[in-house]
């Protein structure tokens, strides 16, 4: 593992790199998919992503706690054993906007990602895998969000 000092040293160099443009032209993403991130339902989010079909699949897994002590940080993971997966999505059904994160896959990584989401209340959470031929497969589970401490 690299030391913290190295990270800091690197970041100084890196600041310069970012300033001098064009070193990573790949960083210019396709335009942020605003429609997908504004969607209020799982269906609408997927519509904005493009796939025509959606089915539950045992080959997709959503990982997360059964109970989250605090909705501010809920660890969620999506992974799949399906071939030709183009994108992995993490969604929280009862959030004001359902789509939490979208990951564009490549052959160089495992089709498994984890991150942490905010959840306003207990809800179903979804992992969706979109394949190259435009099909979407999902898994879901319920995550309960408990109240905090003294409430003060």
């Amino acid at each position, binding site marked *: 593992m690299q030391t*913290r*000092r190295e*990270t*800091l040293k690197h970041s100084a160099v890196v600041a310069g790199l970012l300033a001098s443009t064009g070193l990573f032209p790949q960083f210019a993403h396709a335009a942020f998919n605003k429609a997908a991130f504004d969607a209020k339902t*799982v*269906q609408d989010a997927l519509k904005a992503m493009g796939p025509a079909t*959606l*089915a*539950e699949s045992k080959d997709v897994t959503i990982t997360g*706690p*059964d*109970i*989250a*002590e*605090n909705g*501010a*940080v809920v*660890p969620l993971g999506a992974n799949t054993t399906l071939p030709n997966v183009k994108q992995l999505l993490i969604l929280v*059904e009862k959030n004001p906007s359902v789509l939490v994160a979208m990951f564009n896959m490549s052959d160089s990584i495992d089709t498994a990602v984890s991150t*942490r989401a905010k959840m306003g209340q*207990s809800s*179903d959470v979804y992992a969706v895998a979109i394949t190259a031929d435009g099909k979407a497969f*999902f898994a*879901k589970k*319920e995550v*309960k969000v*408990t*109240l*905090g*401490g*003294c409430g*003060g």
Partner: protein
Amino acid sequence: MKLLTALAALGGCLLALPALAQKTTSQGIDEYRAMLQDGNPAELFEAKGEDLWKQKRGPKNATLEKCDLGKGPGVVKGAFVELPRFFADTQKVQDLESRLLTCMASLQGFNADEIAKTPFGKGEQSNITALATWISAESKDMRFNLPQSHPSEKVFYEVGKRLFFQRAGSHDFSCASCHGEEGKRIRLQDLPLLTKNPGDGVGFAAWPAYRVSNGQMWGMQQRLNDCYRQQRFPYPGFASDATIALGVFLGVNAKGAASVAPAIKR
């Protein structure tokens, strides 16, 4: 889409099932906490703190590398698990944060009174928290062993004990109302018994900690400050003798507990 709707309906049924058994709840929460252990955002503050320690800053453009945290100038490893303690140069019992304030004033030329008045998380206060986070991390897994040889340290323990049992405020709460008995909870939060060693990485041995609920890094000063707020007490000054005496009481009681700081908390 039909399937999804059907499944959503099923989800609704699941929600309507009777409440989960208590045991399952606490197991579920343990599982949740375990999931958060890997990747504690406190690491971000740790890195910042180490950088701040070695950086020339303040009116005197100096680093903190000559700061004496109790084990000699510049000695960081092991200092955390022996604080608060008596310092001869200030003739005061000091905790980690008040000691950092002293060093920032004497070595770097900062105005200690001004920093003490700054709200938590702002300006130099957030730097003190980052420094405390890194310094605590340098004593990770070491066992608490606060000195009690100087008379002032003994006096502060006794004062801290009185503060721990002080019932006051609109709700008559003392620290002991919540932390005076074994195996109690507020809502679902387990409450450590703080009149003795509550175990490795529990209570005093778990701060500074990253608070998941608000995404903030808290040192012991802020932890105690918020305890007092919830106790409905008036406001304890930053690095005030009351907070330090309470720290001595908790720290001495925690003797032998291994430090897990910086921890991650709900």
